[in-house]
């Protein structure tokens, strides 16, 4: 049995616009996705901001009711058996929120230990173990408002593990951390699967998913656009080339013309200091440099280079389709 099973999962939000003449509008955040996560697996849900990662995770942790499809965690339906699901999962999200700043790190953990039903006689030892695991031992009696971002993030991780959950959901746990802090959190995540936990991780960092995950699903505009092991995903874009053109203020029409060229797989525009860089992924055996420059006629063009595609390019190609 898979630890997490998702079938045709959908979520639509209703929102209103206007002040006097209010209009209701539906936004499809997740549009019928399917995936399964095996027990003990570290599964990455990878996608850009607004792709539907957090909405998916919130349906799985019972905070949102799906508008369609089914989801089961450890064989339990996330809507019908929400209470039992909550008992057996942990949830950690990135950023500085989610902490009672006026309480000490220890009091934060004590409160959540109570909320998660950790037996009173085990709480002290469990909190001590977790403080050691996340490197906060010795700082636990300081108020959380004085913690650095990285320390708060590690406190989140400790909180999510208090009740020794079987499945752990990590929603962008390294967002906003400095490289050292992010590496420490990644090391902690790696140790979770060694301890036999099933982990679902959302991230928009390709290298993070590559380094940590056994399986990756790439989500874009609420749909899964690719799924497989990191190696399988890399193989999908190993052929072809990437042309990078430094250009100053490219017009949208020019970018659209490049995108329409035969042999172009994807086009993205990256901001680099004063200029923008047009990153064009091309099909194998096609030379498009002149055609691309032709499309940019009239724009100030700087350096032009060609290189092999990376995993990052694979991701960009997938999410910009």
């Amino acid at each position: 049995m898979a630890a997490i099973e998702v079938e045709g999962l959908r979520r639509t939000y209703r929102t209103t616009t206007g002040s006097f003449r209010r209009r209701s509008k539906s936004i499809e955040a997740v549009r019928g996705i399917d995936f399964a996560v095996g027990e003990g697996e570290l599964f990455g849900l990878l996608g850009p901001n607004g792709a539907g990662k957090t909405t998916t995770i919130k349906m799985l942790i019972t905070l949102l009711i799906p508008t369609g499809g089914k989801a089961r965690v450890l064989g339990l339906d996330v809507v019908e058996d929400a209470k039992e699901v909550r008992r057996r999962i942990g949830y950690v999200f990135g950023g500085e929120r989610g902490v009672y700043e006026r309480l000490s790190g220890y009091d934060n953990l004590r409160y959540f230990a109570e909320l998660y039903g950790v037996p009173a006689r085990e709480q002290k030892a469990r909190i001590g173990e977790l403080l050691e695991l996340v490197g906060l031992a010795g700082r636990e009696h300081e108020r959380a408002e004085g913690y650095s971002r990285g320390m708060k993030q590690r406190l989140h991780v400790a909180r999510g593990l208090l009740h020794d959950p079987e499945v752990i959901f990590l929603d962008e746990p390294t967002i906003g951390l400095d490289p050292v802090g992010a590496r420490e959190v990644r090391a902690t995540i790696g140790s979770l699967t060694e301890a036999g936990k099933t982990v679902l991780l959302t991230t928009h960092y390709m290298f993070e998913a590559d380094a940590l995950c056994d399986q990756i699903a790439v989500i874009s505009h609420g749909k899964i656009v690719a799924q497989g092991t990191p190696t399988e995903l890399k193989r999908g874009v190993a052929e072809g080339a990437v042309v990078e053109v430094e250009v100053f203020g490219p017009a949208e029409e020019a970018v659209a013309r490049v995108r329409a060229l035969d042999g172009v797989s994807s086009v993205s525009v990256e901001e680099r200091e004063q200029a923008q860089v047009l990153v064009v992924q091309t099909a194998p055996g096609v030379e498009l440099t002149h055609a691309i420059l032709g499309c940019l006629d009239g724009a100030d063009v700087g350096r032009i280079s060609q290189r092999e595609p990376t995993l990052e390019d694979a991701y960009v190609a997938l999410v910009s389709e």
Partner: protein
Amino acid sequence: MSALRLLRISWVLQLKMIMRSPFDGFGNVIYPLFFATVAFFVFRAGGGPRTLLYASLGAAVMGMWSSVSTSSGTAMQRERWWGTLELVVSAPRHFSLVLLPATLGLATVGIYNLIATLLWGRLLFGINLSIAHPLLFAFSVIAAVLAFGGLGFLFAVSFVRYRYAWVLGNFFEYPVWLICGFLVPLTLLPRWVPPISWVFAPTWGMNAIRESALGGTPLPDLLVCLALGSAYVAVGILVTDRVLRAARVSGSLSLT
């Protein structure tokens, strides 16, 4: 037992958070003193010592009520701002065990309001603080705190579903002063007002506190106050699951 333990620990932690906020603390220190001063000047003109104690007790309960009504809404709003609301909702324990200690913590701060108001009246205006039945007075104060906490809990449940409902907390602050007889006896109000007053536990809590202080029979009022407080909690618990389901359907839990 574990539910009681959770209530106790959460209540202690809520009090810690309230006491560590300089702005909340400042408001809690200053407000009761204003209430006491206003009540004294209003009642000084026509009253003897007994009337002044009557007014002073009313001002004290005004402070207790204000602490609960305005803060129970903002307490939930803070959980949204801090990003902790989703975490406590997704915990396996019943959400009422999260809300109730929060509002009881706020109501407990009301005890300080009561003591500060009475002392202010004694020290600055010489109001005699002779309490006829000290033990019943203490029970009445505790019953009022519990009932106010229960009413705050009922408010807070709706604040979870409706983000802007915390404004209602402010809206209820002043009308309750009037319709629950904190300063003006209910007998002076139009005849259609008292039936409304009777469904509010503060009316009975106020009566119990006054009866025990001024020498009367506070027990019936005290019991009605506790019964109403328990009823608020029972209704709150019953609607919590429905409210949370509605919030999970609408996706409003993560909104600030």
